Each structure stands twice: as structure tokens, then as C-alpha cells.
């Protein structure tokens, strides 16, 4: 399992992460970011891609 943390004081809900890891991140009906705090190891590459494309660099994988 990997643990994911998003710094919601930084997040501006741009939603770039949703495209890279749709199983972990989504924009809700109010266009606000929601995410799962853990994910299977098989999601690591996708979550790393989400970390990389976040304009605010607000996503962290907690190892």
C-alpha cells in the first residue's frame, strides 16, 4: 500500500492529478478535489505522475 497526502492549504483544485490517477483523485460535483488516503502499490506510477503534474506541488507520497 502507498499513503497519499495532499496539502489542502496549497491545492487549488486544478484537477491535473485526476487525469494521471483517476482511481485516487477526483473532482467532486462542486469541482473540489477528493482523494483516497491509501492506494495499492500498483497505483504508484500513476500517483507519482500526479505528484509531478500538480501545479501547486501539493501532493505527497508518504513512504
Amino acid at each position, binding site marked *: 500500500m502507498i499513503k497519499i497526502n495532499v496539502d489542502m492549504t*496549497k491545492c*487549488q*483544485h*486544478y*484537477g*491535473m492529478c*485526476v*487525469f494521471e490517477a483517476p482511481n485516487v483523485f477526483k*473532482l467532486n460535483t462542486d*469541482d473540489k478535489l477528493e482523494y483516497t488516503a491509501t492506494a495499492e502499490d500498483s497505483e504508484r*506510477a500513476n500517483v*507519482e505522475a500526479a*505528484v*509531478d*503534474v500538480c*501545479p*501547486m*506541488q501539493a501532493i*505527497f*507520497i508518504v513512504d
Partner: protein
Amino acid sequence: MTKPVVIVGASMGGLRSAEALRRFGYTGPITVIGDEPWAPYNRPPLSKEVLAGDVVSHETVAFPQRAATADVGWVLGRRVVSTDLEHNTVTTDDGEVFEYSNLIVATGLRPKRQVYPNNIHAGRHIIRTIDDAMALRAELKPGVRVVVLGAGFIGCETAATARKLGCEVTVVAPGTVPMLRPLGEELATELQRRQEAEGVRFLLKRSVADLVGESRIEGVTLDDGTELACDVFIEAIGSHPNTEWLEGSDIDITDGLLCNANLRALKTSGEAWSNVWGVGDVVRFPNSIFDEIPRRVEHWNIPSECAKYVGSAIATGEAGEVFRPIPSFWSDQFDVHILAFGLLALADRNKLVEGAIDGDCVFEYYRGDKLVGAAGIGLRSVVQGYRKVFEG
């Protein structure tokens, strides 16, 4: 011994290139050479949240380093000054020669500078590096009078940040509306209105003719002769590609490194170098989403997209499909957060398709009948939806 892949430029493009090489299975040596003393860090916050913070430090903007690239050789604080593409070498400013198997050019941009008759330096700033941001942050105190030259994104974001810090901010620019080219008349005018509502002053259709002051800046003289007192002067007038080190090679560096749609650098004959690649905003490349005209694209996602493509091509030995990334950018100014996809500057018209201009809204941008971009304030799901349109 296997010659390494040498990446010149140790910013986001360099880091992402090294990561992509490993991800796509390249196991040989990698050397990354950069002129800044810092490990790769994220530049956009330097005009925004990092500049607005109490402390500007490399730690706050450093990219996370991953296990997969732990064995990359970082050569930092040294500048590559020349290259010999025929013999596969680059040379640094201390005279060391590095041989390469493949060369990735990721040297990015540097800010354009003005030269004035009274060309004093104290109190004068640019924003490109962490060191620039640290130096500027130290001067942005409440009540300080700031003049920003240039009304592009960096100029306007810096103006907003300085205003939030309590400075008296004036933006001077030759255009009629700030950010006109990237955003179009309507959205740009609305952003100007929102900036002005926060207390930023715009002096448009004006330029700075000279600086006032002896040991440090005390003001600027505008082209109409008026004098504007200030304590800090920030130049944000665009960028220049760092390609001088490639001069003398059989290569086209007119306004950036010219590459084909596989991101291979081109000889003056039009033939591509087999082992010289371009990554990031230093590159001029065609993008078949729009047309066949090579352009430099100064958007934050471009270095990463290039890196993925080039890393894969080198690691697998296959060029794959042509490179056709969807450019995207964002901008944060006060409580306005814009997100856009496409090349909005290509448009000859735009139209409001969702919301209202004084609230959340989405615009489409057209060149003739062809959609070339979309931008929105808020309404993220709608804006994100344009990705699919451009993927086609």
C-alpha cells in the same frame, strides 16, 4: 565503458528526462549538468506563494528525488560553454570535457534585461531563480513602492504578490491590456479589473526610458517624461533561450533549438541529429494538434512532456508517434485561479461559453473555425474536458 546520456540543464526538464530514461528501461549512466548550485526545483511559485511567504528557501520548492534516479550524476554549479556534436562532447566552464552517447538539451530560458542610460543595479530585480526570489523577497516590505515592468503572467503574478505583501505596486507595460496575447481581450481586461480592485495600478501604453538614482534606484522615467518614484524595480519583459553554448555547431538555434516532431535537433540541412534531443522551453518544435509551424512554448507542462517523449525514445530506441503535447498553464493572481489548455495566443477570436465574466467563466479560443484553446476561472471540470477535444 558506456558513455552516459548527458543532460545539459538541471531544472525540471533535466530531472524529468533522467526519470523518464529510467522509467522506460535505460540502465546506463546519466550525467546532468546545471549552472545553478541547486538541485532541481519548481520555478512557478517564485512569483507567487513562495514569494508571498516569510521564508524563501530551496527546500520549499525542491522537487522530490526518487530512488530510481539515485545513481544519476549531478554536476551542479557549472555551466556548459561549448559542444562538439561531431565528436559527441560538451565542455564546462572549468574546462572539463564530457563525452556522451546521447545529448539532451534542456538549458531553458533566462529573463531578457533592459539596458538604460543610467544603468544602476541596486533595487533592481528579475525573477527566474531561487536566488532572484530570495533577493526580491528581502525588499518587499509593507509601504515599499514597486514598479513592475511588463504585464505578462510573471509581471502580473509578481505585482499581485507584492501587493498582498503591502507594497504600493505599479505595472508599466507597452500593451493596451495586461496578458492580452495569452488570454485575449475579454479575460485579460477582466483580470486587469480584478487586479485594480486589489489596488494594483496599471500604466499601459508606456515604457520605462531611464532609471533615477545614484547608488540605488529611486524612481523611473517613463517614455512620456513623467517620473515615477519607486524603491524596487522588477523587470518581467519575457525570456531568451539559453543556446549560446551550441553556437558553432551544425544546428539551428534561431529563437531556441529547432527540433523536428520527434524532438531531434535539426542540422541546417534539415536532417536530424540521431543523438541530440531537445527538452523544455528552449525547444522550438512543431505540434500537429495546431499546425506544422515550430514554436517555443513557455508552459510549465512542456518540459515534462518533452522529457517523457525523449526518455522513452532513447531508452527503447524507438521514436514512436510524433510529439504532440497539449500545452496547459495556470495562473494565480489574488483569488483568481486560471486554468487553460491549448495555444491561446494563436487565436483570432474567443467566446464565452460558460458562466459570467465577473465570476467563474470559461472561454473558447479559435483561429478561424479551429478551436486552439480554452481557459477558465473556476469551472475546472469544464476546462479539464477540453483535454479530450485536443487529444482528438
